[in-house]
């Protein structure tokens, strides 16, 4: 409890650092923060042209599917990568001030969450222009993706950060692991493609699928995400928080020795 209280006490610190990360990331670039919108849009146009040829589908309906997968997946990889390095990056702070270590992963997550927030503008605009008939109350549910992603990626990247402090191999292994997960998840490739190949279990038991459905069901189809989608997310959140808690009890105090 004290731990959570201290995270709250230091809130100005990590919020401001996250904002400064955003500022310094786009400093001295002409389009600046607009890149968070331009980049996924450009990639989407590219991919939807190619993929629609490969899978023989209509490019305009496929594009928002790719775009939604891309911005969420981009968040996950970036958040986990920068999160896992966040203790090492903050070593100067950690060596001088006693604060809950989770604020440094929170800083990384927050930075990426703001980026995601901006990137979602591109998806929302796209969906409104191409499929305006989908716009209804279910869109409120889509916004739950932000708190859900925060609650998933924060404990997970904290676990990774503990481990990275000890074993510097983690970021390399993580890149590989994320690639693997990407391949077996319906991020760009439509879930129907998986299903038609008899790979139903890769969809039904895949938390990534359920996570993406929270955005895709409302934005792409105008329907509410299912209870099952939310249940999967909540279970994942629970598991990660519990693991992070157990890791933290063992490692929180020892991290300083490894920096």
């Amino acid at each position: 409890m004290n731990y959570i209280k201290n995270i709250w006490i230091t809130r100005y610190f990590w919020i401001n650092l996250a904002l400064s990360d955003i500022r310094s990331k786009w400093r001295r670039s002409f389009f600046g923060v607009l890149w968070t919108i331009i980049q996924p849009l450009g990639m989407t146009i590219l991919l939807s042209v190619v993929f629609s040829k490969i899978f023989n589908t209509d490019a305009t309906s496929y594009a928002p599917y790719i775009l939604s997968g891309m911005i969420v997946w981009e968040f996950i990889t970036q958040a986990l990568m920068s999160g896992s390095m966040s203790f090492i990056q903050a070593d100067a702070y950690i060596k001088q001030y006693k604060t809950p270590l989770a604020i440094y992963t929170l800083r990384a997550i927050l930075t990426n969450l703001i980026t995601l927030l901006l990137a979602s503008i591109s998806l929302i605009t796209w969906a409104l222009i191409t499929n305006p008939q989908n716009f209804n109350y279910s869109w409120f549910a889509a916004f739950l993706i932000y708190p859900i992603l925060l609650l998933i990626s924060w404990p997970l990247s904290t676990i990774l950060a503990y481990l990275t402090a000890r074993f510097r191999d983690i970021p390399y292994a993580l890149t590989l692991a994320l690639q693997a997960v990407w391949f077996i998840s319906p991020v760009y490739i439509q879930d129907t493609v998986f299903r038609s190949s008899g790979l139903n279990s890769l969809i039904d038991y895949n938390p990534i699928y359920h996570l993406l459905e929270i955005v895709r069901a409302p934005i792409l189809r105008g329907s509410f995400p299912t209870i099952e989608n939310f249940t999967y997310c909540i279970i994942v959140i629970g598991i990660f928080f519990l693991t992070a808690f157990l890791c933290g009890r063992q490692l929180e105090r020892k991290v300083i020795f490894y920096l």
Partner: protein
Amino acid sequence: MINQILLDSVNLHYLSAAFKERSIKALIGRVFDINSTKERVQDIHALKNISLRIDPGERVGLLGSNGAGKSTFLKMIAGLYPTSSGSRIVNGTIRALFDLSLGFEPDASGRENILYRGLLLGLSPKEIKNLEEEIITFTDIGEFIDYPLKTYSAGMQVRLAFAISTAVHGDILLLDEVIGVGDLQFLEKAKARISKIVERSEILILASHDLTALSSICSRGIVLDHGNLVFDSNIDEAINFYKNRNITV
């Protein structure tokens, strides 16, 4: 609650795992090197069975050669290093000045860094706004305050760090060899400022090799040697003890 430090048989080990080679290269090396007589790296026993009590109003000087455990002792008090056994009770807000030039955001301006450092010290943005002008005046780096920190010289960084860290008041003040920073002019200012915050804080622990500074600021002296607390009395006796010990060794 009174501000107080109570230590009861505190031990502290640095984990050898942190600096032992952990790469696969080292692993293979070990396999082929079974009969090696090379000593294996052990956990470092940095503080050995330390018990003491510091009451409100005490000014403690910390003496000891390099590697005696002074910095470790201060960082343990600050709660940065976990103790491996014994009990450590520290009542009061701690203000510590350790490695001053560390912990800046290189791309942010001096002004922004004042904000971040202050926030880390637990201030609110509003309180920092009030302190900002005073800090900038003290650092005396002029228009550089709005330049990114990576353009600063080492001396300017230390000045800024010093000014921020000393602008905030705390009950327990821990100082580790911070007096010898900056140019001569700044040194005078820094000394004046330190004595001011020393007056304001309830408890002071100062680690230094500057014996005159120690005897003028502190009332009590503690001598550490290889992680042991070997002497604890008033400051002048402690300085004598430390001097004699160094002569005999």
